[in-house]
C-alpha cells in the first residue's frame, strides 16, 4: 500500500473510532478541516509510526507543521525515502 493510501486508511479508521465524519480528502484540504481533531492527529501520527516506521515530526530538524493534507502526506513520503 502506498504511503498516501496508508494515511487515508488510518484516517478513516480513526474517524470511525472517534465518532467523527471524515471530509473527502484532497491535497489542498486543510488538516483542521478533515474532521479529525488534535487527539485524532496524535493517534494518527502514533499509528503511522507503527505502520511506516517513522515519526517525521519528532525525528526531523525541520519543524514546520503541515497545514494541508497534501503537505502531511509529503512529510511522510519524504521521510519514508
Amino acid at each position, binding site marked *: 500500500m502506498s504511503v498516501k493510501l496508508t494515511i487515508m486508511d488510518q484516517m478513516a479508521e480513526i474517524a470511525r473510532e472517534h465518532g467523527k465524519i471524515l471530509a473527502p480528502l484532497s491535497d489542498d484540504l*486543510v488538516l*483542521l478541516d478533515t474532521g479529525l481533531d488534535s487527539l485524532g492527529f496524535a*493517534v494518527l501520527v*502514533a499509528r503511522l509510526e507503527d505502520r511506516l516506521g517513522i515519526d517525521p*515530526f519528532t525525528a526531523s530538524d525541520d*519543524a*514546520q507543521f503541515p*497545514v494541508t493534507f497534501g503537505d502531511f502526506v509529503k512529510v511522510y513520503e519524504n521521510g519514508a525515502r
Partner: protein
Amino acid sequence: MARAEALPLRQRIGQGFAEQAFWDRAACARIADLRAGTALGGRLAELADKSVVVATASQLTTALALIELDGVARRLLILPPDVDPAYLDALLAGAEIDAAVVDRATPANAAFDRGVRIVCDEVIVPAERLAVASRDTEWVMLTSGTTGIPKMVVHSRAGLTASIKPAVGDGPVVWGTFYDIRRYGGLQIFLRAVLGGASLVLSSAGEPIAEHLDRLGRLGVTHLSGTPSHWRRALMSPSIRKISPRYVRLSGEIADQTVLDALRIALPQASIAHAYASTEAGVAFEVDDGRAGFPASYIGIARDGVELKIADGSLCIRSPRTASRYLGGDATLADPDGFIDSGDMVELHGNRYVFVGRRGGIINIGGLKVHPEEIETVINRHPQVRMSLVRPKPSPITGSIVIADVVLKSGRAGAGGEFAAVKGDILKLCRDALPRHKVPVAISFVPALDVAATGKLARRHG
C-alpha cells in the same frame, strides 16, 4: 503612598495606552469605563465582604466581575467552565459561598442560589457610587485534571501579580490568550492586561481556531499566550499567518523543543518564552532562550525571590507567588520549609534540566491529565490479562498519548497476528469504558513487567 500591589484592580486600570478594551467573539468592553462604572447592575455593594462564586459563562463577564470584586468581596471562587456540576455543592459549601455572580448564559443550577445572586453584563454603565474596595480579597482557583473533586487553592492579589513586570516601550500592547482566564495560566494574562493598561482578546467557547486566529490578527494582538497544545493546533491552521505577535508565551504544559522550533519558524518576528507555573506554585520562572527545559543555574539560588530545588527528582518551588493554602480538607500545600513539590520530574542533561514526566505517572494528553491506573483497571478486566502497565509516549501533537504493555495469563508475548483478537477485545473494553483520550493507541504483549520493592509496578518517568 500604598504599594502598588496593595491597590485593588479597579484602581489600577486605565493607566496604560489610550484605549484599553477587552474583547470576546461577541462583545467588547471599554475597561476605562469601569473606573466610574459597573457591569453588575449597580449591586456591587451587596457583595461587600461576601464569599462570592464567579460562575459566569463568558470570559468577558468573568473579567469584568473580577475587576469589580477585587478588594470588595472577602473571597472570590473562580469557577472554570468545565467543572463537573456534581461537585458544585461540595465546592461552594467548602468555600462558604454566600453570593453568586452569573451571566445570562450561565446554565441554571440551584447550587448558585445562595443568598445574593447578581447577573453580570458585558455592558458597563456609569455608577453613582461604587463600593469601597479596601479588602485583601482571597482569590480561590481550582486545580485541574486529577480524578475526584478539584482542590481549592487560595492565592492573594499580591502573590498572583508578583511575577508581572511593567511593560517596556514599543507602543500599545494587545494581549491574547488561548488559555481560559479562569485557569491559572490564563488568569496571569488577564492580570498582565489589567495592570499593564493593555487590551485583551479572549477566546469564546466553541470558536473554531481559524476564526479565533483571524480575530486575533484583526485586533492586532502583540502578545499571545497558550499551552503547547494550543500552539500546536494554531500551527496546523493556515490562519497562523494572520497574526504577527511580538511576544509569544507558552505555559501550562511542558514546552518541548519541537514546538519551540516550529514557533520560531512560523513567527520569526516574535520573541518566544516558556513559563513554568502551576495553580499551586504560581509562576516559578520563564525561559527565553528558545530551548526546552531550563538552565541548571536556576537551581539553588533565589531569582526574583523564587527558590528552586530538586528533591527525589521532582522540582520544588518556594516563593512569594505560591498559593497560601488549600481551602477545606487537610491536605498541606508546602513542606515545613515552605517548598511546594510540583511532582514534575526533571533530569540534568549537560547544564540543563529537562522535564521527563509526572511523578506517579500522571500523563498529560493535550492538557488533560490521565491516571494510568484508571486505564490499567479496565484492561485488567479482560479474562486473559494478568497485568498491564499504561505509559506515555511522546506525541508531537498532544505532548503525550497513552500506550499499554500487557502480560497475558498464558505468558505468551509478541506482536504477531495471533494476538489480533485479544488486542481487539481489550481495545473494545477501553472504548466502552473510557473517554477516547484514555484509549491506548498501541498495545504490546510482553512477557513480564517490573515490580518495585514496594510491590508496586515500576513506573519509569517520561
